[in-house]
């Protein structure tokens, strides 16, 4: 993968400092969790079920409030300030496991919506960009269909295009392929691969270890809300430092 990126640690676009998150229960979902992601970097997050991967992503775009700690995205602190929160939501795109397309809108209008309402683009501008994005995810001829008329893989590609329409600085993927039939996983991973190649900053939660190894610049292993270990692709998989990481990798590989 030959892409232009700044050396690690130089230009963090995501800076997460010692965040804690507890759900009523109480369940400690994130426990003193810190990590940074550089501009153009692809960070893959792995870990057992319930380790807090989704919670971490949801905190990044303000879907969940942290109890303590700091999140700074592109220099903007994600704090109480409503304006800043809105700004961050616009800078951070998210793709969900269950697609969450708007079922009452056509594919094109799904992608138009935020461009029109949030970016205040004209109808024509939005339309053009939507069609461009659809082309990019290989669905140019599906513009006027409704989500329920598409396969799972196609729906997820539309969801990616919809998130890209906001021209986010960061894209979050929460198990984007977990709800898909095996034969459709490839087409979605291809789109994600393309994004990575073009230098999009991505935080990806996935169980696709082949994809993780191939596309990631860095892998983070989480357990019980904590960062156990992080490392670069090949090294991480072949020589994990921690015992827990070894055990986990042995289980899933």
């Amino acid at each position, binding site marked *: 993968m030959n892409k232009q990126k700044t050396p690690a640690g130089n230009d963090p676009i995501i800076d997460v400092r010692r965040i804690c998150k507890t759900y009523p229960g109480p369940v400690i979902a994130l426990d003193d969790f810190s990590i940074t992601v550089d501009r153009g970097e692809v960070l893959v997050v792995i870990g057992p079920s319930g380790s807090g991967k989704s919670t971490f992503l949801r905190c990044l775009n303000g879907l969940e409030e942290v109890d303590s700690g700091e999140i700074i995205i592109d220099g903007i602190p994600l704090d109480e300030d409503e304006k800043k929160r809105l700004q961050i*939501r*616009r800078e951070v*795109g*998210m793709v969900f496991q269950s697609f969450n397309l*708007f079922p*009452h809108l056509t594919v094109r209008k799904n992608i138009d*919506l935020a461009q029109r309402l949030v970016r205040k683009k004209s109808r024509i501008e939005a339309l053009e960009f939507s069609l461009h994005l659809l082309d990019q995810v290989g669905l140019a001829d599906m513009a006027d269909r409704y989500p329920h008329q598409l396969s799972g893989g196609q729906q997820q590609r539309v969801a990616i295009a*919809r998130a890209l329409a*906001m021209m986010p600085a960061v894209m979050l993927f929460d198990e984007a392929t977990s709800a898909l039939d095996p034969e459709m996983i490839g087409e979605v991973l291809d789109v994600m691969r393309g994004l990575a190649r073009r230098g999009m900053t991505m935080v990806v939660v996935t169980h696709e270890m082949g994809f993780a190894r191939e596309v990631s610049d860095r892998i983070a292993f989480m357990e019980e809300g904590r960062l156990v270990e992080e490392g670069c692709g090949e090294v991480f998989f072949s020589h994990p430092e921690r015992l827990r990481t070894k055990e986990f990798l042995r289980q899933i590989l």
Partner: protein
Amino acid sequence: MSTADRCAWRLEIGPALLVYMKKRRPGFARYVDVAKFILVLAACGYLIFRGSEQLGYNWHWQSIPGYLFTVHEGHLQIGPITAGLLITLEITFFSLLLSALVGFAVALLRLSGSFVGRLLAMIYLETIRNTPLLVQIFFLYFVMAPILDIGRFATAVLALSFFEGAYASEIIRSGIVAVPVGQWEASHALGLNRFDTYRAVIIPQAIRRILPPLTSQAVSLLKDSALVSTIAVYDLTMEGRTIIAETFLTFEVWFTVAAIYLVLALVMSFAADQAKSYFQTA
């Protein structure tokens, strides 16, 4: 609220009748059915006729059309019953609009993040649902109307709107919460604000769950509107009472008034069913 009878028709008798009629029956059996139906109808008619005879009641059906319409110097003029019907329709129409507004506002208040807002909505709902409509009408008429300086018609519309609005708000609220949480999250992730999320994402999806029961609610509103005759609003019921007081045509007038309500309610129920099937297939 008097939903029980409407439910009985819509949930049990109506479909049962349909199933019954749709069964493929040989020609002869169908005629037997029709004959049975006419027999039952005739028996009912006979009972009413005999009952009224024993009361010494003299039927005067011939004077009823005059209360519906009169022809005066070549012009068709509406009679008091038709005038009452128009008032009933007017009250129902305005109350329907206003109750939908009230219902929507209260539903949003209940779903809002504001504790005070939720509390206010709960107080409103519990008060309305746990006091008789008649008492609410009297309260508005004797207490609030003089203070606010509003007329009887406005009082009637307000009372009905606040009453039905409580039920409408529950319908609207359940329609809104039935929209999957993923829709909120997707809107949030795209940076939509709360207003746009409701307007462009949530409401268009909730409306198909909301409209059918709201249309049924309109039938209740129509029937409940009869209660405004107690504050001397000259609606269908009040006109009926007035005519009876003058003419003692008790049976004929109540039969006529009931038949008009029945026809209106059936038409609205039919519309509700149409709305339901429309939104289920759409």
